[in-house]
C-alpha cells in the first residue's frame, strides 16, 4: 500500500490551465457534436444551434456583414460549448487509451477440476477472453493475470502499476482481505491460483475504461434538476423574445430575425448550459486523478451531501500499530533504569511495538542501540502466545540478569514464580493506563547471583498507546465546519475507544463493533435523513458498503467489497474519503457558481441590446445604453462575441472546479455570491465595452 500522504498521483493531468494543443486536438470532436441528435440532450445549446440555423438561412437570403458576423459567432458559441465537453472528455480518452494498451490479449492457463489442496487439476491454454466466472487459472512469475478474480491458492507479489500507477509491487494472497487481483496486472514472483469473478468485457479495466471515457455517462439527479431550471429559463426567454416582435411592430421598429435570435442567445443561460456537461466530466476526472474510480456521477454528487462519515480506527485514524508513549517506573526505581531495561528487553523484538520502545528510549533517554558484542552472553527470549512476554537474559558480574516485558498478568506471575512480591502500585499504574485507552506492558527483572535467592521485582510499566495520525484533529475540525459528523468504528472496548475518539477529535464512536453493528449504525443514520459515507476492504464490509450512500472500497480489498462499493480507491487510502467529499462539494459549487454567473450576465446584455433595438424609435431608450456602445450593430455584435468568448474563458474553471475551502455554508455562500454573482454582473459590462471599442472599427459593423 502506498503511504497515505505521499501517494503518487501518476494520472494527474496538468493543472487547470488550458493547453492550446488540447483545444486543437478536441476541435474535430467538437464539430462532430454539432449533430442535432446529440445536441438536443442539452436544451440550452440546442436552442442556440436552432437559432444559428435560422440566422444562417436569413443571412443567405439577405446577406451583409452584420448578419454573417452574428451567424458566425452563434455557430462558434455552439462549437465552444462542444469544445468544453470534448476537452473534458479528451482527458479521459487519453487515460482510456493507456488502459487499453494493458488489455493485450493474454493466454490463460486454465485449470479444470481444481480443488483446494488437490493436485489432480488439468491445465489447458485458452485465450483470456474465453474465461468465465468460476474458472480457475494459474499464474506464475512474469505472467499477466488474465482476468479479475480472487487468489485461492498461494501468495505472490503483483505489479499493479497498470491501474494504480504505483510501481511498488503489492502482495496478494489467498484468503483474508488482500485476495483480489485485477486482470492485466503482472505477477512478479511466485505462483498463484486465481478464481475468475468477472465476465470478459466486464472486468475492472473494462469498467475503468468506460468510466474515464464517459461512455456510461448518465445525467446525475442534480444535473437533471439544474437542467430543468435552465430549460424553463430558456422557455421564458424564448417567449419574451418571440412576443417582442408584435410589440416592436406596434412601436414601429420591426426587428430582423438576426437581432431577435441574437437577443435570445444572449439571454438564455448559455454559459452554464455550455459548461454543464464539462463540469460533470471534470468532477469524475478529478477523482480519477486522485486515483479514485467512481462508478457513477451520482456517487460523486452524493459525496458532497454526506452528513456522516464512518471511519475505521485502525489504519485510518490511528497508525496501524500501538507505540510506546511513556515509561512509568514503580517507586524506588529510577526511570532511566526502567528505560534501559525496556530497551534491552526489546532489542530483538522486531514487532512495531518493540521497535517503538527502542525508539522512545533512544529519543527520551539518549540510550543508544548496543551491538551484540557489548552485551555479554545475551540470550534473547522471543514472544510466544503461551508466555505472552519476551525479553533477554544477560551476563552480569557474578550472575545473570533476566529481563522480561509483556502482558501485566504474565510478567507478574513470572516475578512471583521467582520469589518476588510486586507491590499494589503496579496494579494501579496498569489499571490507569487501561482506563485511558492505552495498553500496559510490565517490565520485570530477575537477578541471580550465585546460590542466593533470586532478586525478582517489577521495574515499571511501559505505556503503549494508539497513535493518532498527524493532522487528523485538523481534518475532523474541517469536516465539522463543513457540517459533517465523523464516527469512529473500532473493535476496542468503549473505554479505549472513548480515549482515542477524544484525542482524534471525532464526534462519536462505535466500540466493540461487529460488522452487523456497522450496518445497523448506517441504517439508523439514514433513517434520520443523513447520508452516510464509509470505506471498507473486507468481505464482511460488503453489506455495509452497499448500504452506505458513498461506499469507498479499497483496491487491496476483496472483490466482494469492490463490487459492493460505489467507488474504488486505487491507492487504498482510507483518509481519502475526506478528499472525495470535497470533490463532490466542489462539483456542485462549480455548477451553482456558473449558474449564478450566467444569469447575472444577462443584465449587461440587456443594457447593450435593448437600446440598440429600439433607440431609433424611442430615443429616450438610448439612456439605457449605459456602456455608451458605438452603434446598434456593434453593440449587438459585442454582446454575442462576449457571450461566446466567456465560454472559452471559463473552460479552465469548469475543468478545475471552483476553489473550495472548507467552511460553513453561510461563509461559502457569501464568498461565492460576491465572486460569481457580483462578478457576473460587472464583468460583462467591461467585456462588452472593450469588445465594442474594437468592433466599432470593423467595416460593416459601424
Amino acid at each position: 500500500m502506498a503511504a497515505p500522504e505521499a501517494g503518487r498521483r501518476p494520472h494527474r493531468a496538468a493543472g487547470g490551465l488550458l493547453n492550446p494543443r488540447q483545444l486543437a486536438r478536441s476541435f474535430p470532436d467538437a464539430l462532430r457534436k454539432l449533430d442535432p441528435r446529440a445536441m438536443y440532450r442539452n436544451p440550452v445549446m440546442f436552442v442556440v444551434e436552432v437559432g444559428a440555423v435560422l440566422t444562417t438561412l436569413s443571412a443567405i437570403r439577405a446577406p451583409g456583414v452584420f448578419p454573417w458576423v452574428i451567424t458566425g459567432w452563434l455557430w462558434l458559441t455552439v462549437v465552444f460549448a462542444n469544445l468544453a465537453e470534448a476537452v473534458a472528455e479528451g482527458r479521459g480518452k487519453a487515460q482510456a487509451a493507456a488502459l487499453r494498451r494493458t488489455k493485450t490479449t493474454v493466454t490463460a492457463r486454465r485449470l479444470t477440476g481444481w480443488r483446494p489442496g488437490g493436485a489432480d487439476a488439468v491445465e489447458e491454454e485458452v485465450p483470456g477472453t474465453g474465461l468465465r466466472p468460476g474458472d480457475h487459472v494459474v499464474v506464475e512469475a512474469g505472467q499477466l493475470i488474465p482476468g479479475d478474480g480472487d487468489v485461492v491458492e498461494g501468495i505472490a507479489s503483483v505489479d499493479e502499476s497498470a491501474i494504480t500507477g504505483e510501481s511498488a509491487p503489492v502482495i496478494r494472497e489467498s484468503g483474508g482481505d488482500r485476495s483480489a487481483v485485477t486482470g492485466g496486472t503482472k505477477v512478479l514472483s511466485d505462483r498463484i491460483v486465481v478464481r475468475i469473478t468477472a465476465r470478459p468485457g466486464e472486468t475492472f479495466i473494462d469498467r475503468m475504461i468506460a468510466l474515464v471515457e464517459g461512455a456510461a455517462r448518465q445525467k446525475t439527479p442534480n444535473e437533471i434538476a439544474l437542467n430543468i431550471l435552465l430549460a424553463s429559463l430558456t422557455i421564458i426567454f424564448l417567449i419574451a423574445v418571440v412576443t417582442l416582435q408584435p410589440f416592436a411592430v406596434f412601436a414601429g421598429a420591426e426587428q430582423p430575425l438576426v437581432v431577435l435570435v441574437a437577443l435570445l442567445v444572449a439571454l438564455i443561460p448559455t454559459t452554464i448550459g455550455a459548461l454543464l456537461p464539462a463540469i460533470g466530466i471534470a468532477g469524475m476526472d478529478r477523482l480519477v486523478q486522485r486515483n479514485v474510480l467512481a462508478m457513477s456521477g451520482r456517487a460523486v454528487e452524493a459525496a458532497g451531501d454526506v452528513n456522516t462519515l464512518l471511519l475505521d480506527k485502525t489504519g485510518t485514524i490511528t497508525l496501524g500499530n500501538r507505540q510506546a508513549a511513556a515509561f512509568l517506573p514503580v517507586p524506588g526505581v529510577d526511570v532511566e533504569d526502567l528505560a534501559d531495561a525496556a530497551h534491552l528487553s526489546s532489542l530483538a523484538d522486531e514487532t512495531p511495538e518493540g521497535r517503538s520502545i527502542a525508539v522512545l528510549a533512544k529519543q527520551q533517554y539518549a540510550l543508544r542501540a548496543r551491538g551484540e558484542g557489548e552485551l555479554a552472553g545475551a540470550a534473547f527470549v522471543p514472544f510466544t502466545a503461551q508466555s505472552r512476554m519476551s525479553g533477554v537474559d544477560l551476563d552480569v558480574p557474578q550472575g545473570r540478569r533476566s529481563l522480561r516485558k509483556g502482558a501485566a498478568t504474565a510478567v507478574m506471575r513470572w516475578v512471583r514464580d521467582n520469589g518476588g512480591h510486586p507491590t499494589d502500585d503496579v496494579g494501579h499504574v496498569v489499571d490507569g493506563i487501561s482506563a485511558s485507552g492505552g495498553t500496559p506492558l510490565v517490565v520485570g527483572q530477575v537477578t541471580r547471583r550465585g546460590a542466593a535467592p533470586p532478586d525478582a521485582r517489577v521495574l515499571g510499566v511501559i505505556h503503549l498507546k494508539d497513535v493518532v495520525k498527524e493532522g487528523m484533529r485538523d481534518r475532523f475540525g474541517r469536516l465539522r465546519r463543513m457540517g459533517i459528523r465523523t464516527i469512529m468504528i473500532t473493535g476496542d472496548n468503549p473505554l479505549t475507544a472513548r480515549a482515542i475518539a477524544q484525542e482524534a477529535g471525532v464526534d462519536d464512536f462505535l466500540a466493540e463493533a461487529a460488522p452487523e453493528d456497522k450496518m445497523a449504525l448506517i441504517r439508523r443514520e439514514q433513517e434520520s435523513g443523513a447520508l452516510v459515507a464509509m470505506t471498507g476492504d473486507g468481505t464482511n464490509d460488503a453489506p455495509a458498503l452497499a448500504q452506505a450512500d458513498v461506499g469507498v472500497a479499497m483496491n487491496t480489498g476483496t472483490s466482494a467489497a469492490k463490487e459492493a462499493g460505489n467507488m474504488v480507491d486505487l491507492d487504498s487510502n482510507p483518509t481519502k474519503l475526506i478528499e472525495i467529499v470535497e470533490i463532490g462539494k466542489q462539483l456542485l459549487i462549480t455548477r451553482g457558481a456558473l449558474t449564478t454567473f450566467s444569469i447575472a450576465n444577462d443584465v449587461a446584455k440587456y443594457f447593450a441590446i435593448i437600446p440598440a433595438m429600439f433607440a431609433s424609435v424611442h430615443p429616450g431608450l438610448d439612456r439605457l445604453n449605459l456602456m455608451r456602445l458605438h452603434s446598434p450593430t456593434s453593440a449587438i455584435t459585442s454582446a454575442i462575441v462576449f457571450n461566446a468568448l466567456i465560454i472559452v474563458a471559463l473552460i479552465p474553471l469548469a475543468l478545475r472546479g471552483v476553489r473550495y475551502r472548507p467552511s460553513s455554508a453561510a461563509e461559502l455562500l457569501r464568498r461565492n455570491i460576491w465572486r460569481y454573482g457580483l462578478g457576473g454582473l460587472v464583468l460583462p459590462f467591461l467585456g462588452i465595452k472593450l469588445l465594442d471599442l474594437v468592433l466599432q472599427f470593423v467595416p460593416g459593423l459601424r
Partner: protein
Amino acid sequence: MSDTAAGWLQAAVLVAALALSYRPLGDHLARVLGGGPHWRVERLLYRAAGVNEDTDQRWPVYLRSLLAFSAVSVLFLYAFLRLQDRLPLSLGRAAVPPDLAFNTAASFATNTDWQAYAGETVPGHLVQMAGLAVQNFVSAAVGMAVAAALIRGFTRKRTRCVGNFWTDLTRLVLRVLLPLALLSAVVLVAAGVVQNLHGPLGITTLAGGHQSLPGGPVASQEAIKVLGTNGGGFFNANSAHPFENPSGLTNLIEIYLMLVIPVALPRTFGALAGDHRQGYVIVAVMALLWAGSVALTTANELHRVSSPAGHAAGAMLEGKETRFGIWSSALFAVSTTLTSCGAVNSAHDSYTPGGGGMTLFAMMLGEIAPGGAGSGLYGILVLAVITVFVAGLMVGRTPEYLGKKLRGQEMRYASLYLLTTPALVLTGTGLAMAFPGERAAMRNPGPHGFSEVLYALTSAANNNGSAFAGLAADTVWYNTVLGVVMLLGRFLPVVFVLALAGSLAGQQPVPVTAGTLPTHRPQFAGLLTGVVLIVVALTYFPALALGPLAEGLH
C-alpha cells in the same frame, strides 16, 4: 399638517398596525390550519355536503376537490349573472351577456375581480351579495388553503397527504374571514361607508339638475373586497368612490385590510414550520419590496410631473382624488398592485410613466410582496425554493429548504410555476398587439397605449384585477381571452404548488448541520430579494422598455 408629514405619518401608522397584527393573526391562522377539534356548525356543514372531515387528502385529491369547488363556483356565478333579470333585488337590470358573464365569473372565482362592467349598471344587489361577495370569501379561502397545503408539504414527512381541502376552506371562511369581515364592515360603516338595500335615488340638486344617488350593501362588500385581496368594487370607480371610501381614514383602513392577511401568513408559516425566524425572513423580503415600491412610486408622483394636466395643476393630480392626494393614492396604488387586490382609489393610467410603470412592475413581481391572501405566501415560497436551489449549489450540497431536498421533481414544479405567469402575460399581450382589432381598443397611442394592454394582461394573469383604465376591455375578445388567462393564471400555479407540496411531504427531512444553507438569516432575505428582482426584470425588461421606459425616458 403638511402633505409630507401626513404621508409619512400614515405610512408609519400602517406599518405599526401591520406589525401589531402580525403575531396574533399569524398564530390564529396557524391554529386554524394546524388541526384541532371541529366546531358544531362546521360538522353540520360537513354532514350537509357529505364530506368526511377527518380524512387526510393526498395532493391529487386535494387538487381535485379544489378544482371541483372552483368549477362549481364559476358555473354558479355564470348562471347567476345570465339569469339575474328573473331574480329578486335585481333593480330591474338586464341579464349579463355571455362573454361578460364568463369573464366576471372567472374573475371572481379566481380572486382576480377584474371588472369589465360598471358596478352601477350591470349587477343587481342580489348578484352583488349572494354571487360576487360569496366568491370574495371563498376564493380568498381557496388561496389560503393552497398556502396551507404547501406549508404542510414542508412540515410533514413521509406522507403524500397535504390536508383536507374542505375543512381548510370551511375553517378559513368561518374562523378567519367572516369574523374579520364583519368587524371591518362595522368599522367602515362607522367611518361613513354606506350600507343599505336602496336602488338609485333620484334627487334634484339646488341648481335644479337631476342626479342619481346609488345605494346598496356597500360596506359589507367593501370589507371582504380588501380583506380577501379581491378588489372588485361595488361601484365602477371602486375605492375612489366616496360611498366606498369616503375619507383618508377609510382609505388607510382599506390599505391595512388588504395587507393584513398576506402579511400575517409568513408568521403562520414560521409557526407551523417550528421556526419563527423562517417567517421573519419571508415577511422581511415582502416588506423590503413593498417599501421600495412605495418609495419609488411616491417619489415619481411627487417629483416627476410629466403630463400637460400635471403641469397645469402643478402636481400629478389627474386621476387622483383630491381628498386622498398624492401620498395616499400612491400608497394605495402600490399596496393594491402588490397584493393581487386590485381595488383602486386613483387611475393608474394617469400616473407618471415611472409611477404607472411601478404599479405594472409590482404585479409582475408575481403578487408576492405580500401578495394575495394565500397566493402571496405560496408564490414567494416557490421563489424561495428557486433561490435555495441556486444558492444551495453554491455551498456544495444538494439544495435543501427546511430539510427537504430540492431534486428534479421539486424543481420541475417550481420551474413550471415560474414559467406560467410570464407565458400568459407575454403571449396574451403579443396576441393582442398582433391583431389590429384588439389594438384599436387602446385609447392612447404609442408606448402608453401598449402599457394599457400589457397592464390588462399582467393584471389578469397575476389575478390582480386592477385596470390601467384607458382600455376598452368589454369586447368579446378581451372578455374571453382575459377570462381564460385569469383561470389559467390561477389554477395552473395551484396545480404546481400542490404537486410540489405532495412531493415535499413525501420526503424524510435531512438533519440541519453547519453545511446546510441557512434560510433564516438576513443573507437569505437579501438573496431572495435579488432573485425575485432579477428574474422579474429579466423576464419583462423588453416589454417594459417599450412601455413605461420608452414613455418615461427622454
